[in-house]
């Protein structure tokens, strides 16, 4: 009961003193909840609080003070009572041993390393700069004259602040735990020492998990997505053979779920397959290609591109003959053309024309959103690679079934020798290695 109350109390927010009109609520450092970073040992947090009050002499040094939260970049770096910082820990180059071995220094070094990786993946410096820009915007008295813009700014600010707080919370946690260990050691409190070691180990594990989560910190990573696969030339790619369905020329799949886009974007590019073609009676080796594009389905309706009904041409395709009562067919495929851009979308697998139209509209909406994002990215002079633009030269992975067996990612050199498992969907290794490689190579972003 008591820890519950304490936790409740910790959530108490206060208004940002520098900008009392801001609708963003800030939490003071001491009242901040540790949700997300202390998955299972919040009781320990409470134990620590009571210890703290029993040792008033230490309470000052135990606390780490952040000031000026309104200007996020300007803050005093967190330190332990001995003046140790997270970067300082990294500089110590304490050896990182397995979880089961080593002393607290090994754990601390592992956590500090995770924090650095997370910061790199989140593009920490950029976040700081962006936060300053956004804070300045939020402070403008005329901000809410344009409510749409204001909403965007405050949403982005909120999102970045969330990331910032998570990382600072993790740093904070590490340093507090070191302080606790020092304290326990000084006072020969074995119980507290073993508690603190346990807590440190838990933090190490959760920091490792956060590394993975940080891989998926892109703007639309959390969205569902469409995946488009297009068969390409090379060898004999067969669309249809008489009497036998031998392949699919193009397919669009909808993938619903958290972080579908974040993961699937790792598959964007051209995939190359080398095999003895089952459609070649002479049993010769063939090379075929498939291009994969991935488009996020934006979940925030306000960021959708507005589509004018009058800009659309909706057609039934594969239709012919007089139609109407003359024809009985379950075919109700629909193609929608967005006339100003020439972008088209089709759907044929739903069981009614109405549903095919709705699905095609959803695909069209995503494609137009994607176009708009690419346009804006260009305007912002960011070098983001458009995911829909795939040239056939942009090969990312090779699947060889003959004469030897191997799947190799050309971007990361990650490879496995069992193509069957990969073709059946075991892609995790490829996706994770690509995501970490692409984010971790920007060393200077930290």
């Amino acid at each position: 009961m008591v820890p519950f109350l304490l936790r409740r109390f910790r959530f108490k927010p206060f208004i940002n003193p520098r900008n009392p009109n801001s609708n963003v609520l800030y939490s003071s450092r001491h009242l901040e909840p540790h949700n997300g970073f202390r998955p299972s040992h919040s009781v320990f947090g409470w134990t620590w609080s009571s210890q703290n009050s029993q040792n008033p002499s230490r309470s000052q040094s135990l606390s780490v003070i952040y000031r000026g939260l309104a200007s996020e970049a300007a803050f005093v770096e967190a330190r332990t009572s001995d003046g140790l910082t997270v970067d300082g820990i990294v500089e110590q180059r304490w050896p990182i041993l397995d979880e089961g071995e080593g002393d607290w220094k090994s754990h601390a070094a592992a956590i500090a390393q995770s924090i650095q990786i997370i910061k790199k993946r989140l593009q920490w410096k950029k976040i700081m700069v962006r936060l300053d820009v956004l804070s300045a915007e939020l402070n403008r008295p005329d901000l809410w004259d344009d409510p749409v813009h204001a909403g965007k700014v405050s949403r982005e600010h909120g999102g970045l602040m969330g990331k910032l707080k998570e990382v600072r919370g993790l740093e904070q946690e590490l340093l507090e735990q070191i302080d606790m260990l020092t304290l326990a050691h000084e006072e020969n409190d074995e119980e507290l020492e073993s508690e603190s070691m346990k807590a440190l180990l838990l933090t190490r594990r959760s920091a490792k998990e956060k590394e993975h989560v940080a891989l998926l910190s892109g703007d639309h990573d959390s969205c569902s997505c469409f995946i488009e696969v297009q068969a390409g030339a090379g060898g004999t790619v067969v669309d249809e053979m008489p009497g036998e369905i031998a392949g699919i020329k193009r397919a669009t799949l909808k993938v619903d779920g958290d972080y579908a886009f974040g993961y699937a974007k790792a598959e964007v590019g051209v995939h190359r397959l080398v095999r003895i073609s089952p459609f070649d009676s002479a049993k010769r080796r063939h090379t075929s290609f498939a291009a994969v594009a991935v488009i996020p389905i934006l979940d925030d309706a306000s960021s959708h591109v507005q589509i004018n009904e009058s800009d659309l041409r909706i057609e039934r395709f594969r239709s012919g003959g007089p139609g109407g009562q003359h024809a009985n067919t379950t075919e109700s495929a629909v193609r929608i053309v967005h006339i100003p851009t020439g972008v088209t979308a089709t759907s044929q697998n739903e069981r009614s024309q109405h549903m095919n139209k709705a699905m095609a509209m959803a695909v069209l909406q995503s494609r137009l959103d994607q176009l708009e994002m690419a346009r804006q990215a260009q305007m912002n002079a960011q070098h983001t690679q458009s995911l829909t633009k795939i040239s056939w030269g942009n090969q990312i992975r090779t699947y060889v079934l003959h004469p030897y067996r191997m799947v190799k990612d050309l971007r990361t050199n990650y490879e496995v020798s069992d193509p069957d498992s990969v073709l059946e969907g075991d892609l995790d290794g490829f996706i994770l290695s690509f995501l970490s490689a692409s984010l971790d190579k920007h060393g200077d972003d930290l």
Partner: protein
Amino acid sequence: MLLPKLPLRPTKLFASATPPLFSTSSPPPPSPPPPPLKLPKPPLFLRPLISSATPTSLHSFHSWAKSLALSTPPDDPDPLDPNLLLRELQWLLQDATGDVGRSQNPDLVPLRADLGDLYGLWRERVLERRPFQYVVGCEHWRDLVLWVGEGVLIPRPETEVVVDLVKEVVIGRSGRGDGEEVWADLGTGSGAIAVGMGGVVGERGRVVATDLSEVAVEVARFNVERYGLKESILELKAYEGLTRVLVNWLAPWDKVQIRQGSWFEPLEDVKGKLTGLVSNPPYIPSRNLPGLQAEVGRYEPKLALDGGKSGMDHLIHLCEGSVSYLKPGGFFAFETNGDEQSEFLVDFMVSKLENNFRDVKAVADFAVIKRFVTGFRS
């Protein structure tokens, strides 16, 4: 959603006998009771899980069905599209199987029909050209899944647009007037347009649909009930105050009502009061009936297809009736056989029924065929 009760409401077993023109002194000989109404089987996807099969036996059904689908002779003048058949096979299995996770034996797939029946159904589909929608007993139309079967026209994809046309008009006139608005669908068949309209005519709107066929009336009533459009007003208005509740309790009315009869005959009570009138009447010229696609010609009811010599017998009857049944400003939309009929009808309504209608025009379907004629009563 209201789940349908199967079997349906008791069907009329005894049609009211026509009274004899001349009464005779001797009582008429007892005539044999008319045969009970033969209704199609309920939709496959709504039938209970009465059977099951092992995944292996389902797989062998699937490969057998697939090869049957791909074996259609190449010189068939009216061929089946193998791609379509394969998609239909997938849908058949989708409708016929239940959720494996809920079955008691995880090694068996629960089925709504015996596996043997599935073989029979697929043979009927491929070899006898029975329409897929009759095979599974349902048609997906707009966002609805409607019961259909022999004796009822399978609603076509083109016809979905009729509901969109009505929706546009409803949105356009929202805020005008405050009385109830009655919409009619004549020759409703499975009730597709009526049920679709029930969802778009707004809070003040209700739909009355007619059909001559007793089978169609029963099927349409089932579809109306399945989508909760019967007496839905009672629930809807229940929160609006005691008076409304009392009024509705005393005189409940259906959002969508199905009446049996020919065209306007069952609509005397709403004559001159209709806000809108739509229909997909039979419009195929009689001479074209023999050459129809096998699925249509062999299985679908002639009553719903045969439009007389020019195909326009019923369309012209509907246009003429609209003059007296629509209220001023009332909307109409009729589906036609295409360009020729639509152009003729527009001309007919503008010149022959002049001053009765305004904004009469032909509207194209998604295949760019002038499929509909729409307009307003002056």
